[in-house]
Every structure is written in structure tokens, then in C-alpha cells.
């Protein structure tokens, strides 16, 4: 298994406002990409998350693993990004796996009913216990 970190950033936008969002992207072979998201995902930062995901999807991956352990805030715009990502991956016969969302993020998923359509694991061990292919 070859794994490389090819992108990690704390982005800044025009005007100097600092994004409280960090995304580390790891490619785990040709079919799988892993994103480690930390900080706040809201109307300001969600476009950056979407860009990072879209860049990965453009490479034709079949599996996207998104680690949410260190997400401090997650709102409906972030949820919208995940839903559109899932839709795109399903159209490509791919899968999206969410690892370690906080209780607050899970509450958002539950209140909006999307926890039923997402594949969610508490941690990487649980993911590997259920997935047939190793989860990075």
C-alpha cells in the first residue's frame, strides 16, 4: 500500500480572513482518497471542502474516506457538500465513508435524517472491522 500526503493547507482568502479549516488529503492507491478535516465547516469554509473533494473525485476514485474527528463545527452547508459528494460517488459506483464525527455532527446528521444514507463509523478500527477493503 502506498500512501502519500499531497496536500495540506490552512487557506487564506482575499481580504485576509483566515479560514478555520484544515484539510489533509492522502491518496491510498489509485482508487481511494482519504481526507482529514479539522476546524469549522460552515458557509464560509464549505466551498474549500467542496473544492478538495471535487479535486479528488476528478481523479476517478472509487472510495472517499473523510475523517471528521477534529471538526469543531459542521453546518447545513457542509452537509450539502457531503450529500452532493455521495450522489456523485454513487453515480460512479463509488462509496463515501465518514469516520469519527463528533456528537454535534452526528446530531446534525440525525436531525436532518442523513445518518440513514451515510456510512458512518466511530473510528478506524470499527471501519476496518466492517469494510472488506482496508480503510486508511
Amino acid at each position, binding site marked *: 500500500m502506498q500512501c502519500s500526503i499531497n496536500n495540506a493547507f490552512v487557506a487564506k*482568502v482575499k*481580504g485576509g*480572513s483566515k479560514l*478555520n479549516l484544515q484539510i489533509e488529503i492522502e491518496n491510498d492507491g489509485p482508487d481511494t482518497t482519504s481526507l482529514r478535516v479539522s476546524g*469549522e465547516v*460552515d*458557509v*464560509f469554509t*464549505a*466551498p474549500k471542502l*467542496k473544492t478538495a473533494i471535487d479535486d479528488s473525485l476528478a481523479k476517478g476514485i472509487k472510495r472517499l474516506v473523510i475523517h471528521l474527528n477534529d471538526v469543531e*463545527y459542521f*453546518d*447545513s*452547508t457542509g452537509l*450539502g*457538500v457531503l*450529500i*452532493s459528494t455521495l450522489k456523485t460517488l454513487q453515480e460512479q459506483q463509488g462509496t463515501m465513508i465518514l469516520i469519527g464525527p463528533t456528537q*454535534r455532527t452526528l446530531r*446534525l446528521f440525525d*436531525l*436532518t435524517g442523513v445518518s440513514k444514507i451515510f456510512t458512518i463509523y466511530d473510528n478506524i478500527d470499527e471501519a476496518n472491522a466492517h469494510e472488506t477493503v482496508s480503510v486508511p
Partner: protein
Amino acid sequence: MMTSIAEHPGQTTRPEIVTLVIPCQADYVSVARMMIAGVASRLHFSADTVEDIRMAVSEVCTDSIERASAHEPETIAGLTIEVIALVSKDSITVDVIDHIPPHAQASPGAHKNNGIAFPFEDSQAIRDALIEELVDTFSRSHERGGTFVKLTKYLDDEQAV
């Protein structure tokens, strides 16, 4: 951005009012979240309830920004979102006021603001349903060319720390 704290006139119980005015820009929503979390914490809500109030206010501000994003930049330049929190002994009421036309009156065309993704077909409906779950009362009205939202959360024995 402007903040002020004042006693609410004419109230015998002297509730307190905290007002925040932010530019109608995505990067200021986090400021509204910080403000409302600080105010809600004064009422001794549980941490989860404070987070619910914080998210509800954030979603309302996000809705304002989404509506603004449907207009040309020059149309919305200088527009603000006003967040007014009224803290009484057993509740917090938050008014969120903007001067952006509601969805039905918005200019046609794709959203333009900062490339923000709003992938829901009816994001306001989903957002409203979420807000209704997060607070005790929620109302939205359109007046004077803008939108007026009122949220209330009551302190009860279960929520109190």
C-alpha cells in the same frame, strides 16, 4: 461591525439586550456564532443547548447569505445582518434581521457569492426544518424588503446546568 449592550426599556424584569451587526458576508457568520454562544452561556443553558442555539442562529445567518448570493454584488454591497439577543430570566429570544429580498423575490440566476455551494434543491426548507428542531419557537416574516426571523429557547429544568 457594531456591538452594544443595553437594558431593554420598559421591562420590569429588566432583560438584557445584546446587538451585533455584521456585514452580510460568509466570513462573519462565525462572529455571530461566537456572540450568541457567549450570550446564551449567561443563562446557564447546558452546553448542548448552547450549541443548539448557536447552530440555529448560524443557520439563519447562512440563509441570509444564501439569499444575498442570488443577487449581483452591487445590489448587496453594504448590506448587513442584525442579530439581537434578548436575555430574560428564563429564555433567550434572538431576532435576526436582514434587508435582502426573500427567495421568491430574488434575482434569477446562479448563486454568485464566493462560489458557495448550496447543493440542496430547497436549502431553506431543510435549514428551516433543522432550526425548528434546535429551538422552541421559530418564525420568519418578510417585511420592508427584508426578512425578520425570531427564535426563542426557554430554560427548563432539564436544560439547566
